[in-house]
């Protein structure tokens, strides 16, 4: 029995790691293929990398030793080819990146397949003792080695997410108004930021955005907190229908309501005003806020309210002294959501407030680049616009996690 178990479960960790490396080649080939096809060269090589990665991924096993050696060698060769081809026409970062992946995984494949543990296992020359020793060795070494490739893979995804942001930062700090990124740290300067900050327009838009976003948050909370509480604690006729219709509103894309909203705002005389946008934003954010808060209130035990009732609180006292203080994390999340929705919104702001002194930041940002192609100023401004968002997220991080996770799950 133990003979079976140890032999059946033992695979040298080198092979398990190799499997991860192959996956890395496959996953990295996909975005690289996309980038290279834009640059009109090397797709064939990348495709080959993709195929050989898939191949070795499929063929891991005792019987396919030669196949595995072959694909590893192929990946190594491909890496060298990529690098060589790049040197012919000037090396770009992406070439080094991709060939490094191939060379590392291919080299690792060849090295690990020729190591004594693996060749013993592949040759089937391990007894029970050998398999047991191998299992013990795996337990110690596997986490270390597997970690390297897992992290390499994850770093790739992080990098892909970070590129646009890094690009924007670079453009905003580089002299000149070009949108292409050279990444020359020695020339970095803050002139774009100062030129944006000196513009009166910018400050007008900032104040518009702040007023509208804060107004939206306050009005939204003022409406959503009592509504969520009522939906959570009371059963009234139309309870289910109203909850569902709140969801229903969320199901349609915002563009559908654009024209009707415009007509309503026009007839109310609320175009080119703060109030018009505040109204529109708080109404569109309301369904999410109400559901979110209802979910939280559901987790606050009714016992607490009853205890407070016996302690001498009326309905409002219970709400104010017990429920609200306990719900601060959920309220923070809801407030953040309303604020961000209003801060980032573009379409309604573009339609409703068409006079330049009533622009919000996103609209102002869009117009500033259509008037003159000043990419440096544009990048600096878009960074400035996102600073409040970043600050809010950092400040509310803790309650954000608490609020989001407890919203649905009973705590």
């Amino acid at each position: 029995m133990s003979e079976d178990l140890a032999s059946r479960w033992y695979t040298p960790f080198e092979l398990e790691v190799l499997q991860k490396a192959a996956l890395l080649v496959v996953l990295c080939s996909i975005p690289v293929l996309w980038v290279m096809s834009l640059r009109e060269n090397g797709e064939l090589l990348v495709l080959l990398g993709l195929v050989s990665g898939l191949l070795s991924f499929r063929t891991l096993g005792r019987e396919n030793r030669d196949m595995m050696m072959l694909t590893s060698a192929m990946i190594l060769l491909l890496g060298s080819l990529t690098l060589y081809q790049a040197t012919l026409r000037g090396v770009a970062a992406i070439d080094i990146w991709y060939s490094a992946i191939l060379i590392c995984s291919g080299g690792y494949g060849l090295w690990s397949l020729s190591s004594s543990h693996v060749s013993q296992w592949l040759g089937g020359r391990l007894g029970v003792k050998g398999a047991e020793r191998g299992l013990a060795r795996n337990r110690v070494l596997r986490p270390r080695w597997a970690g390297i490739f897992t992290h390499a893979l994850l770093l790739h995804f992080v990098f892909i997410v970070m590129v646009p942001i890094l690009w924007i930062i670079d453009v905003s700090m580089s002299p000149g108004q070009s949108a292409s990124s050279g990444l020359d740290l020695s020339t970095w300067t803050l002139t774009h930021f100062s030129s944006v900050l000196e513009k009166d327009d910018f400050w007008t838009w900032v104040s518009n955005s702040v007023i509208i976003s804060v107004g939206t948050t306050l009005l939204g909370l003022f409406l959503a907190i009592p509504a969520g509480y009522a939906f959570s604690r009371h059963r009234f006729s139309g309870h289910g229908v109203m909850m569902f219709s709140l969801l229903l509103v969320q199901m349609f894309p915002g563009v559908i309501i654009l024209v009707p909203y415009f007509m309503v705002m026009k007839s109310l005389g609320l175009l080119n005003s703060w109030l018009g946008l505040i109204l529109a934003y708080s109404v569109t954010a309301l369904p999410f806020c109400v559901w979110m808060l209802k979910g939280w209130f559901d987790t606050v035990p009714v016992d607490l309210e009853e205890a407070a009732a016996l302690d001498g609180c009326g309905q409002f006292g219970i709400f104010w002294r017990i429920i609200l203080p306990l719900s601060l994390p959920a309220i923070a999340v809801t407030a953040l959501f309303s604020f961000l929705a209003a801060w980032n919104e573009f379409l309604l702001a573009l339609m409703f407030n068409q006079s330049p002194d009533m622009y919000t930041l996103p609209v102002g940002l869009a117009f500033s680049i259509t008037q003159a192609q000043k990419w440096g100023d544009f990048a600096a401004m878009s960074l400035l616009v996102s600073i409040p968002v970043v600050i809010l997220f950092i400040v509310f991080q803790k309650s954000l996690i608490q609020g989001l996770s407890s919203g649905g799950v009973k705590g």
Partner: protein
Amino acid sequence: MVAVSFEGIGKVYDDGTTAVVGLDLAVEEGEFLVLVGPSGCGKSTTLRMLAGLEDVSEGVIRIGGAVVNDLPARARGLGMVFQSYALYPHMSVEDNLTFGLRMKPKAERPDSEELKKMVQETSSMLGIDDILEKRPRDLSGGQRQRVALGRALIRRPKVLLMDEPLSNLDAKLRNQMRLELRRLHDELGTTTIYVTHDQIEAMTLADRIAVMKDGVLQQHCPPLEAYHKPANPFVASFLGTPPMNLIEGNADGGVFSSGSLSISLPDHLSEIGGKGTFGIRPESVKVLKDGGVEANLSGVERLGSETIFHLEVEGIAIKALWHRSGEDAEDGESGDWPEGKMQISFNDPSAVWFAQ
């Protein structure tokens, strides 16, 4: 100290469920009443109606003679300990204790010095003076229980209500708190109404118990009276572990028969006749070496201080409880009975009869 009375109380929920039917119950000043019954018997609903957390569908509730049916909970001057303790998580223990006092109308609100004195008094009485600064989540179950009790007591409530307050504690702590609750009641003399499904709590705490079943009051009397003279088979089987043996059958001329079983009744029951239920507590079933009814032994539970015999007499399951005493105990524990057979006798002055 005030009296509480329920007069013809009924409760029907909005969905049509009937929880309590025609409840008449008078609680005297300073009495410790325990409402006991299986879950769903309406005991908690009764308590919640008194607290003002549920509307009364029918009848009148009086606290100290005044009808309180339509008073909001906060106006009734009651203190309540919840099963979940329901401590306010965002307040320190001290703030939890004083919350009710601080919510009083301005004229009755104690000033900060009085508040401090009251906290001091209550917390030292309950042994929680060293945790006043802590939050409820940092407390152990026993400490939370004490804080919940303190919060109810600090306002000197007219009536103290407790809804299964000990059920979230472990067995050892529960025993300890039970004694302490009784001691507190003897000290303070507050009229107390206590809901539980645990018959041991009911027996040990109560001045009088009220046994309920399906929303109907079954018996209201001192606990030992309910134990020895149960009003009906339900009360008889609900109180006591293991429960009373109940055998349905006919009595005639001092002889009780049920199926093929026929036994002579004890002297005090010799006058009865007709259909009914014969009841005898397991500890009153006499286990004899010979000279009784023959019973098959189907199982033995040895608990050390006592031994429970699971017997079968003419197809009827009977439990007998044998307390360890002297030399007899040796025999009982060795289980050395001839071929699993025993002789038992039902002739005991504590046996009861419920006529049908």
